[in-house]
C-alpha cells in the first residue's frame, strides 16, 4: 500500500516538474521589465551534468549556479531520483510509453554501458575545453526543441486557426520568428520519443549522459531496494516491469534505478521494500565496463579534438565571454528569451564545437539596443554582464557598390535612421553621386564610425537593398 502511494506521489511530482518546466519556458522572454529573474533558468542552474561540464571546460563557475551541488548532494542520498521524479524529458518518455502501450520487450543483455562511455568521451573533451556535450543534455534537448520547433509551429497553427476562431488571435505571438535548426532539434526530440517504441525509456537507459553521471554518484545511495526472499515466489515480474533495467530480482543495480517504485507496487507478494541505510555492505551489481573500452573512449575523445575545433570568428550574443564555446551549455535559454530572435543556434557547417551555440544572426534580425535579457537567463555566464553602453558584438560595414545613395543616387538613409546608438554610429556625409543615367549631384550617404558601432545589426536588418548594402562583421580590435 505504502509503495502504491509513493508511486502516485512520484507521478504527481513528474507532472509538477514537467508543468514547472513548461511554465518557466513560457515565462522566458520580455514581459515588460528589462531585468528578469535568473531563476527562469532554474532547471539549468541545477543541471549537474551541464554545469559541471561547463565548469570543467572553462574553469569558471557562476555563483547562482552553485545549486548544482544541491543536485549532487540529493543524488548521493536518494540516487537517480532526478530521472524518475523530476526530469521533464524522462516524464515525456514515460508518458509516451504509457500512451502507446509499449510492449515490454527486453534486450537479453541490456547495453547499459554505452552511456558511460559517451559520458567519458564528453568529459575528457571537457578537460580540453570542449563544451559540446551540452547538445546531449536531456533538458537542453527538450528546451531547444520546444523553443525552436514546438513553440513557433504551435503559434503558426494557432494563427491559421484564428482565421476561423478569431478569439485565438489574442494568444498568438505578436512577432513570430523562425529558427534555424528547428527541424533538427524538433526531430531529435521526436526521435528520442520514438525510441520508446524499441524499448521503454530507451534514451534514459542507454544514451542519456546526464543519467550516466547521476548514476555514478548514486551507487551508494541510502534508499536500498531489498527483497523479502521468504515471500518472493521468484516470478521475476519486477525485472520485467523495471523501466530502467535495474534488475531488482537478478541483482539490483542502484546506479540504474530511478527510485520509481514500480516494482514495489507491481510485486504480487509485496516482497519488495526499500529501507534507508547508510551501509555499503550490499554489493551493487556491476555494469560490465572493460578497462580497454574506457581507455579507448578517452583516447577517442582526444583524437576528435582537432576535428571538432572551430576557429572561425563568429558574431556572438552581447557580453559573450572569450571562451564562449567552453562555457555555453547549448541550453537555448537565450534563444527563447531574445525578443527579436536574433540569437539563433549554429548549424553543423559552423564547426562541431560551435554546434547548437547561439550566434547573432543579423541576416534575420537584430539585437535590440536597450534589451538586457539574455545575460540574466544564461546559467553559466557564457553571456557575461553587459549594459547597452558596453555592448560590442561586431561592426557594420557599408558596401558602396550596392548602397542606394552611393551607387544609384537614391535617397535612403534608413540605416542611419534606425541606428540606436545615442550619438549615431552611422554618420551621414554629403557625397557626389552619379545615377545610372549619368546625372551628378550631392546626396546624403552613410559611413560607419567603428568605435561607436556596437554591431547590433539593425542597419543590416532594415536596409532596403538586396543583397544588404550594410552588414555586420565580427569585431577585431
Amino acid at each position, binding site marked *: 500500500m505504502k509503495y502504491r502511494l509513493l508511486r502516485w506521489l512520484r507521478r504527481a511530482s513528474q507532472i509538477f516538474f514537467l508543468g514547472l518546466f513548461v511554465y518557466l519556458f513560457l515565462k522566458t522572454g520580455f514581459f515588460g521589465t528589462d531585468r528578469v529573474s535568473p531563476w527562469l533558468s532554474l532547471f539549468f542552474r541545477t543541471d549537474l551534468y551541464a554545469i559541471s561540464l561547463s565548469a570543467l571546460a572553462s574553469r569558471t563557475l557562476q555563483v547562482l549556479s552553485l545549486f548544482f551541488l544541491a543536485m549532487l548532494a540529493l543524488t548521493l542520498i536518494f540516487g537517480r531520483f532526478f530521472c524518475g521524479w523530476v526530469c521533464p524529458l524522462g516524464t515525456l518518455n514515460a508518458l509516451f510509453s504509457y500512451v502507446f502501450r509499449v510492449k515490454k520487450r527486453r534486450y537479453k543483455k541490456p547495453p547499459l554501458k554505452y552511456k558511460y562511455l559517451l559520458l567519458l568521451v564528453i568529459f575528457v573533451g571537457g578537460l580540453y575545453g570542449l563544451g559540446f556535450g551540452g547538445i546531449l543534455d536531456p533538458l537542453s534537448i527538450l528546451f531547444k526543441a520546444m523553443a525552436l520547433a514546438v513553440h513557433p509551429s504551435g503559434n503558426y497553427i494557432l494563427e491559421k486557426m484564428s482565421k476561423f476562431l478569431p478569439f485565438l488571435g489574442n494568444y498568438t505571438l505578436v512577432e513570430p520568428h523562425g529558427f534555424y535548426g528547428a527541424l533538427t532539434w524538433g526531430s531529435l526530440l521526436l526521435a528520442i520519443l520514438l525510441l520508446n517504441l524499441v524499448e521503454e525509456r530507451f534514451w534514459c537507459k542507454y544514451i542519456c549522459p546526464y543519467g550516466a553521471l547521476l548514476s555514478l554518484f548514486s551507487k551508494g545511495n541510502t534508499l536500498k531496494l531489498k527483497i523479502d526472499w521468504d515471500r518472493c515466489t521468484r516470478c521475476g515480474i519486477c525485472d520485467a516491469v523495471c523501466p530502467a533495467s535495474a534488475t531488482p530480482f537478478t541483482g539490483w543495480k542502484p546506479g540504474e534505478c530511478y527510485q520509481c517504485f514500480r516494482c514495489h507496487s507491481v510485486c504480487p507478494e509485496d516482497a519488495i521494500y526499500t529501507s534507508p541505510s547508510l551501509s555499503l555492505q550490499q554489493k551493487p551489481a556491476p555494469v560490465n565496463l572493460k578497462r580497454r573500452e574506457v581507455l579507448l573512449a578517452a583516447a577517442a575523445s582526444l583524437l576528435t579534438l582537432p576535428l571538432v575545433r572551430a576557429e572561425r570568428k563568429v558574431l556572438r550574443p552581447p557580453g559573450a565571454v572569450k571562451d564562449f564555446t567552453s562555457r555555453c551549455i547549448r541550453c537555448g535559454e537565450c534563444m527563447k528569451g531574445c525578443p527579436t530572435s536574433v540569437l539563433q543556434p549554429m548549424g553543423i557547417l559552423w564547426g562541431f564545437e560551435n554546434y547548437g551555440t547561439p550566434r547573432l544572426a543579423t541576416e534575420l534580425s537584430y539585437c535590440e539596443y536597450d534589451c538586457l535579457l539574455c545575460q540574466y537567463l544564461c546559467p553559466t555566464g557564457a553571456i557575461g554582464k553587459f549594459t547597452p553602453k558596453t555592448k560590442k558584438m561586431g561592426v557594420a560595414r557599408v558596401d558602396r557598390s550596392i548602397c542606394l545613395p552611393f551607387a544609384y543616387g537614391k535617397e535612403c538613409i534608413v540605416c542611419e535612421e534606425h541606428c540606436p546608438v545615442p550619438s*549615431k554610429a552611422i554618420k551621414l556625409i554629403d557625397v557626389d553621386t552619379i545615377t545610372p543615367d549619368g546625372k551628378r549631384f550631392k546626396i546624403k550617404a552613410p559611413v560607419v564610425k567603428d568605435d561607436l558601432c556596437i554591431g547590433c545589426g539593425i542597419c543590416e536588418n532594415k536596409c532596403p537593398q538586396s543583397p544588404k548594402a550594410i552588414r555586420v562583421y565580427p569585431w577585431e580590435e
Partner: protein
Amino acid sequence: MKRREFLKALAASLVFPLVSGENYQGVEAYGDDPYEITRRALKAYGIKKLACRGDVVLVKPNIGWDRRPEQAADTNPEVVRAVVEAAYEAGAKKVLVLDNPCNPAKRTYYRSGIARAAKRAGAEVLFLREGDLVKKKIGGEFLKEWEVYRQALEVDRIIDVPIVKHHSLAGATISMKNLMGLIGGRRGYLHRQIHTAIVDLTQFFRPTLYVVDAYRVLKAHGPVGGNLADVALKKRVLVTSDPVGADYWGAKLLGLAEPPWVKIGQERGLGRKDIKILRI
C-alpha cells in the same frame, strides 16, 4: 458624413467664432504637466469635436522606438492618456491605440509607457500582426498602392498624436510622417521621395484631429535619439485639424524654416501653414 455629424460640425463652426471672438484653427497650451496642458488645449478646442457618439476612434501616437518617455523618441504617454480620455468623454464607443513600431512592438509599447497610460484611460491597446495588412489603393502622387493595417480603415476616425522630432532625411517627423505607423511592408522605400510620400499618406488617411506633443522635443540624432542632451523641454501641445499648420508649427520649434512636405501639403490644399493659433 452622417447628418448628425454634419449638423454638429455646422453648429460648432458657428459657435466657435462667437465664443472665441476670432477664428482660430488651433489651440496651443503651455505648462509644466503634459497631461494638464493637453487637457486644457483639448477643452479650449472643444472636446466634443474629438468624436461623435458611438464612434470607434483610433488614437495613433508615435510608439516607434524602444525608448523611455524622457528620451523623447515616442509620444508622451500622459498626452496619449489625455487624448484617450477626451475621446471617451466626447462619446466614443471604443478607442484603439496602436502603431507599427520600428523596434519589437512589445518592448516599444511597454517601455514608452504608452501601453500602460492608454490602458489606464480605458483604451484598447492593440498589437498589429502581419495578417492585419491589406493591400490598398493610396492613389497618391508617389504612393500608388501599399499595404495598410485594416484597423486604420475600419475605424470611424483617426486622431494623430505625434511627437516633434528631428529626422535626418525629412528634417523632422511630426504629424504627417507619424502616419507611416499605419502601413506595413518595406517602409524604407518611402524614403526615395519622403516628402511626397507622407503627404500622400495624409491625404489617404485624413485624420480628423492632430494633437502634437511638443512637451519634449528631440533636436538631433532623431528619430531614435537616446541622448538626453538632444532633448529640449518645450512644454507645449498643439491641437488642430490642419496637418500643414501642425507640421509647420512643430518644425518651427526645431528651428526649421519651411520643410518641403509642408509646402507640398499646402499646394495640394491639405491645409495652411499660417493657421491662427490660440495660445493659452
